[in-house]
């Protein structure tokens, strides 16, 4: 289950890349910028600013699940008729099934750009390892064609899976959201131990540790320094990603509330400050 394929991605891995977003994630981080990525099943979103109020969707919904622009998600079976018939593209469907062959075909369309730029395919999400077998099959099919692959992941997978991934994926970009396990558990509901182990195991690979800098959660000096020291210990680069609230409209589209709606996006200069702290310990990029 894929919810988006984006081409000309240049900030996630080497060269010009195509990023494929897998749907479904074990975590539900409260700041998540992609709420449509969390559920493993198809969802329908409603973009109010595009809607012309024509009422077409209400008329044609076979389940009568739409009233006054509110989709009753209990009744809706995500058949997609309303999305098809919306003249304004105000309704969107998140999630599409691709076979491995279909997906590989889609990804090969940009092959010439990968070859010219030293780029390739990045698996992202959601959490790509949440659909691990599908991911591995796709990655090895690309590997056979000589396409470079990268994985953006939350790092929550077994050591056995880690081993299999390391044989088919060329580059790893793995989040480390908090060094302090109690904080990690408290906010994310899981321990960071498995993540730390996997980072150890992958440290001889092309690995970057990523710290999504979330105001009030992990942006304190102690955590920044500790994360940087851990990266130094593994001898792998650390990358900071600044919090942004650009996902707000997607929460609204899905009829969800967003705890981080009123938290302002981090500015470049704020992020530079954080980077400077980390750089006192270890090399760090933005």
């Amino acid at each position, binding site marked *: 289950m894929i919810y988006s394929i*984006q081409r000309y991605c240049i900030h996630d891995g080497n060269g*010009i890349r195509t990023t494929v977003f897998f749907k479904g994630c074990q975590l539900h981080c409260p700041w998540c*910028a992609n709420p449509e990525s969390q559920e493993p099943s198809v969802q329908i979103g409603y973009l109010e600013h595009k809607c012309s109020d024509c009422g077409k969707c209400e008329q044609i919904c076979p389940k009568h699940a739409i009233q006054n622009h509110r989709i009753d998600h209990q009744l809706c079976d995500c058949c997609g008729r309303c999305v098809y*018939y919306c003249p304004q593209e105000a309704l969107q469907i998140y999630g599409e099934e691709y076979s491995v062959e279909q997906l590989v075909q889609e990804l090969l369309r940009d092959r010439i750009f990968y070859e010219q*730029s030293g780029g390739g395919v990045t698996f992202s999400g959601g959490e790509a390892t949440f659909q691990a077998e599908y991911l591995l099959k796709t990655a090895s099919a690309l590997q056979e064609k000589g396409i470079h692959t990268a994985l953006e992941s939350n790092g929550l997978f077994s050591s056995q899976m880690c081993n299999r991934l390391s044989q088919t994926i060329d580059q790893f970009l793995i989040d480390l959201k908090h060094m302090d396990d109690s904080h990690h558990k408290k906010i994310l509901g899981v321990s960071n131990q498995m993540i730390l182990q996997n980072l150890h195991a992958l440290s001889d690979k092309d690995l970057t540790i990523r710290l999504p800098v979330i105001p009030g959660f992990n942006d304190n000096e102690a955590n920044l320094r500790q994360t940087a020291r851990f990266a130094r210990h593994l001898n792998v680069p650390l990358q900071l990603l600044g919090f942004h609230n650009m996902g707000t409209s997607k929460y609204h589209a899905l009829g969800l509330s967003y705890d981080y709606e009123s938290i302002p996006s981090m500015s470049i200069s704020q992020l530079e400050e954080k980077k400077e702290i980390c750089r006192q310990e270890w090399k760090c990029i933005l």
Partner: protein
Amino acid sequence: MNLQLTERNQMFRNALINTVPIISAERAQIVTKIYQENEQLSPITKAALGLKAVLEQMTIEIQDWDLIVGNQADGLRASTINPAVNTWIVDELDKFELRDGSRFHISEETKESIRKIIPYWKNKNVYEKTMALLPEDTTNAMDSLVFTCGYTLSKGCGHWLVNMERVLKEGFAGIEAQARSLRDTCDLSDPDGIDKIPFYDAVIMVCQAVRDFALRYRALALEKAQSADEQRKKELLAIAEICDKIPYQAPSTYHEAIQTVFFLQLIPQIESDGTGISAGRLDMFLYPFYKRDIEDGRITRSQAEELTDQLWLKIASVIQVWNEEDSKSFGGHPISQAITLGGMDEQGNDNTNELSYLMLETTARVHMAQPSVCCRINRGTPDDFLSLCSEVIREGLGMPAMYNDEIAIPSLVSHGIPLDLARKYYAVIGCVEMGIQGKLCAFANSGYFNLAKTLEIMLHNGIDPATHKKLVTGTRRLEDITDFQSFTELYYDYMERLLKHQVRVTNAVDTMHARLVPLPFMSAITDGCIDSGKEVQSGGALYNYDGIQGVGLADVTDSFLSVKKLVFEEHFCTLPEFVTALDADYKGYDELWIRVRKEIVRYGNHSAEADRLARELVRRFCDTVSGYQNLRGGYFIPGMYSNSANVPLGAVVGALPNGRHAYAPIAEACSPSHGSEKSGPTQAALSVASLDHVLMTNGSQYNQKYHPAALQGEKGIRSLSQLIRTFFLSGGYHIQFNVVSSETLRDAQKHPEQYRDLVVRVAGYTAFFTDLNKEIQNDIIDRTEMDFSA
């Protein structure tokens, strides 16, 4: 990259940005008087006398910041007018200040002068003489905007790639000497002498007039020096010394060469009001002067930068006025003075040099809509150069535009240019047109052909639903078409029949330009004219083109796909039913409209079927255009670019089978239609690259728009360079970028006063955003913005 202008150039730039352009009648007044007093003389003699008189009498100025001198008319940004081509101006005198975009000031005194001189030109200007020749079916097609010849019917030929090389080597003294020696061999006992003698006399007269024009600046500089402070006095004396020598004698220093280049760039615009006067490969031609001065310690790099910056600003000061209608097709004062950097030598070796880099930096530093800077890229182009191009592109200027040598050179060769000349002298004319510097007479903008209107007329069995006139007869009827191939063949039949009208107009208008407004200055410097003793628009140049541009490629391609699927494959409706829905602008045909919008994989997603149909459309269009010879012994050559003409050309076309609503803009140039690029910038670029660009010798154009965030950092620069390389490797010819967010553009619409110097890429040229009218502004905002940084 140092983005700081020197103080004098900063003053110059501020003055340009804060000066509203004006209309000047001076040139027209002087020329009119000469023509009135010399009716009996041959056209070329009158033209030479007219130019001589203008150069002798026009107001000249030296500003406090000038290191290079020369002005087009009496004002910092002043447009001349040319009533010998078209007298439209007299009808719009009171409208200039009311314009939505491309606004001008005009004084009451100027209006009065213009009203006085216009009657002389009635019935003897290019426009009226051309229109008198045209048959009714042709004017009907033109009235329906099947095509426009607005450019050549209202302005001078323009589109010259000025022969910098020859004048930098020989000066006008060399040209004059050659003309004199050939003049001496002519005699009226030889029938050719009748035309050749006045031609050579005109060339000689112009060479001397140009010398005297420079001497006027010498005198003015000496005069100003008397009251100047020590520092300025030194500068003015240097200006006087330079103008004493060049352009009559060949220059020897970089400063002299730069001044020569500006005179050469300026005088064609005074001679006629043509646009697209292009300076061509300045890095190549000026490099020897730069290198020598640096080696001999005569100049430092920063002095060279200041002079080069000033040349750019001088070029930016040149402005031209368009009539109101044409200003919609050419929004925002596009003077299209192109400079081409990078490229290769006659043997095919890349010859990017230090000046190529310096001039790119100048472009970023000066940050003006003019000159239009173009870069030639080939396999040997250094990565550093491409990388600097990307950095300048990221500055958001829409420049440089990028051009592919590997397409341009075979394309020029296919139209008769020897390989070594194509490699060395190929430069961009005006917007995107391929030219051969100093050797070509190209009526490069002989108008836009409306591919979308052609489809609409075909769908109405030859009748234009807007004018109700029957424009095409004798073809198969739509009702009798039962398969897709016959449908497209019928379209091509219409295209051929309608395009013939545009060729007729072009031949008529070219003839009138040659007969009524000969160009002795351009004839003096363009290779071939002096050897043959012929005026440049009458076949004197070595090579001769006329360019016709198709507009609406994406709309027609997508319409084909739509008809193929819904009519011929799925039988969802019949052709006449489809046309009924189009006539209703899809109102009441929701199901059809939805299917069209949702089920057609459009051009711009690198889908095999769409790309194949688009490629075929390009081929048929190119074959049709290339099938005609022009009257100067050269070719008609096809292009696929639109400038902003996609807006007015769309405004006369009803709904189309691709789901485009009535009167909306059609797709510009080779770009997919708005909102069609569902698969992102790489797939859109591959679709465009899949067209056969070698066939489009008059240039093809592709715009991409990026949000600044998509080009952040080192990686952003590298990736943009790689995108350009890949696009070219895949067969693309031209690509240009608007790097500005739609939020910024919307804000600029609301607060234009805060965005006076916001420059955007319109199409084949850049313009100040606030100089564009609202419709063109909206069109630019609507072009899909690529932002894949999230």
